[in-house]
């Protein structure tokens, strides 16, 4: 058992996009667990421990035979529950022969896996990202694999001040860094709300809105422990009532992020952008996805450099600023989940 942990195990983690998972084997590590994923012929997702019961060869090196997985070494056959249903050269099957099967569920265009105690895997705990699979919203996304602690990505998303400096050419401007913000939290969520009133919109938003003049811009960041950040963003012409709740003349977008720890220092970062305007124009979907790909690559460069700097300064710990309140609530909620599993959280990233 780890003496200190950076992520809980009792949580649903996104393991793949819906379209990534096919009737073929996909090897992916989720929260340190090596898992072989596939879909049955009926399309149901399956998640099995990626090591044969017999000689531990990764099952992801085997092949599928109908709904069953055949080990690529000696041909032991496992069903979607991880039970061995065939052994070579014997008339019976060893009753102990099985590999662990993980609870898995498909929802909001992602396939989610629960690496912890199976009895606790309540489908109601899947983060609510319903905008990602809703006809009123259009968009798409990708997955990237940054070489950093997933919590550095959470930190990044919980304070968008960095847009001004990391993404100066697209979505950032001085208003983001200077506007005041409010932070609140619950038992499982933390929220950072920032309104920028009567500002000149940055280039990306000018194009999306397609109208001249100053705007009211919002960024409402919803953290759902341990690693999902759904950000409600948009702009509306100033004076049309958006801060009071009328967004009818503006444009809204959800920036969906769920960052699955792969190991303590690598992660799978699934993101999507969905919008409530021009929802039938695939061109807009593709253009936004391409431009966000570039924006998030700028983040990836920073996050990986930050992880290297942390590793190069093992005796240094972070300072925290006022702007870090959202990230600090997120980390506190993560640490609570880890502590609830009877493990010690490793709360300072650079210890």
């Amino acid at each position, binding site marked *: 058992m780890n003496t200190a942990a950076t992520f809980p195990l009792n949580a649903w983690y996104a393991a793949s996009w819906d379209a990534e998972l096919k009737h073929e084997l996909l090897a992916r590590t989720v929260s340190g667990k090596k898992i072989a994923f596939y879909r049955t012929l009926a399309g149901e997702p399956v998640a099995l*421990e990626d*090591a044969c*019961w017999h000689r531990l060869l990764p099952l992801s090196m085997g092949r599928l035979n109908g709904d069953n997985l055949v080990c690529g070494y000696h041909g032991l056959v496992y*069903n979607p*529950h991880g*039970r*061995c*249903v065939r052994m070579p050269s*014997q*008339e*019976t*099957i*060893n*009753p*102990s022969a*099985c*590999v*662990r099967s993980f*609870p898995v569920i498909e929802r909001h265009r992602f396939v989610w896996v629960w690496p912890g*105690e*199976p*009895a606790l895997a309540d489908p109601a705990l899947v983060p609510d990202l319903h905008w990602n699979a809703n006809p009123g919203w259009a968009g798409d996304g990708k997955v990237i694999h940054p070489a950093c602690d997933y919590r550095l990505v959470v930190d990044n998303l919980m304070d968008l001040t960095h847009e001004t400096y990391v993404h100066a050419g697209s979505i950032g401007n001085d208003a983001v860094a200077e506007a005041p913000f409010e932070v609140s939290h619950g038992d499982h969520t933390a929220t950072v709300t920032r309104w920028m009133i009567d500002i000149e919109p940055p280039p990306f938003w000018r194009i999306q809105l397609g109208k001249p003049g100053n705007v009211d811009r919002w960024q409402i960041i919803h953290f759902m422990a341990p690693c999902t950040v759904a950000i409600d963003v948009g702009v509306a012409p100033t004076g049309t009532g958006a801060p009071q709740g009328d967004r009818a003349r503006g444009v809204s977008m959800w920036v969906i992020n769920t960052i699955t720890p792969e190991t303590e220092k690598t992660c799978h970062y699934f993101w999507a952008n969905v919008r409530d305007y021009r929802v039938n124009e695939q061109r807009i979907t593709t253009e936004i996805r391409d431009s966000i790909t570039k924006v998030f690559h700028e983040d990836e460069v920073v996050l990986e450099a930050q992880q290297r700097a942390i590793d190069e300064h093992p005796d240094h710990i972070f300072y925290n600023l006022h702007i870090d309140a959202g990230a600090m609530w997120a980390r506190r909620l993560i640490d609570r989940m880890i502590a609830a599993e009877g493990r010690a959280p490793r709360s300072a990233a650079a210890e």
Partner: protein
Amino acid sequence: MRFDTNWIKAVVQATRDLTPGIREFTLAPEGGATPYPTGSHLTVRVLIYGRPDLRHYSLIGEPREGCWRIAVKREDPGRGGSRYMWSLPPGARLDVAPPDSHFELSRDAPEYLLIAGGIGITPLRGMATALARRKVAFRMVYAGRSRSQMAYVDELAADLGPRLEIVAEDEQRTIDFAAEFARLHPEAESYVCGPIGLLEAARQAWQRTGRRPERMLYETFGSSGRYAAEPFLVRVPRLGLEVEVAQNITMLDALEAAGVGVLADCRRGECGLCMLDVVAIEGKIDHRDVFLSQRQHAENRKICSCVSRAVGGAITIDPPWRGDPVLE
């Protein structure tokens, strides 16, 4: 999955006699009792005539107040593990391996049937609680000689109500497997733990219903047979040996002690590595393994020496030793 063993020290916190022949042990391991999937067992280091050996005991229910619980049936004609356990008073120390699981309850069957025979109730006790909590369709059939000799009957009756059926021999009752299986959902799973006769009857009845074999799960530690264990002689003509197998040791141990090369791994009748060719048999073979099929048991050409025994005389076997070949 199999894991390397890290032995830990445990103290017998309390003992409780569940029936005249079954004693429950509450064990406090150093560092606290870790949780385990229901159906798991503990491996315990026992001493038999001063010689260390290992025994596996199913864990009862869930960890409670930092302790694990096991229940041990006293087998006076047994190999000595239970007599050792019964000799331990509260406060005694012993070495245990952390819980291991070969008999795990699945998460998503539409219906479950638990079948317990005698001391085989131990891994199923926790499964019944887990299923009751899940609110899934299930029943437990629990067979034994008489209610007074069956552990946990009262608490199970309280927990399960009409979902529990007690089948006591002294009430002239036996399990009607065909009827039990006929009323199950087509994708139901059955979990069986009990003496080999009950297990074999259940497996055969299951097969006759045409149900998939992997939907019947069972556990056996290879410790029960159709006949009581008795001493017997093993003739090994290829090596010019005759080996006595005492009533309280296994044929495998006796052969190893006599210097006969035999492979073994699971030592509970599952893996088949200790299987030997049978040349002749005087009396009967009490097949106690689950590696060989029913057909192979009937043939009597192989014996799994870790658990199976000869009854009523002697057995002649041929070990795999052939000397070193001269290659030309």
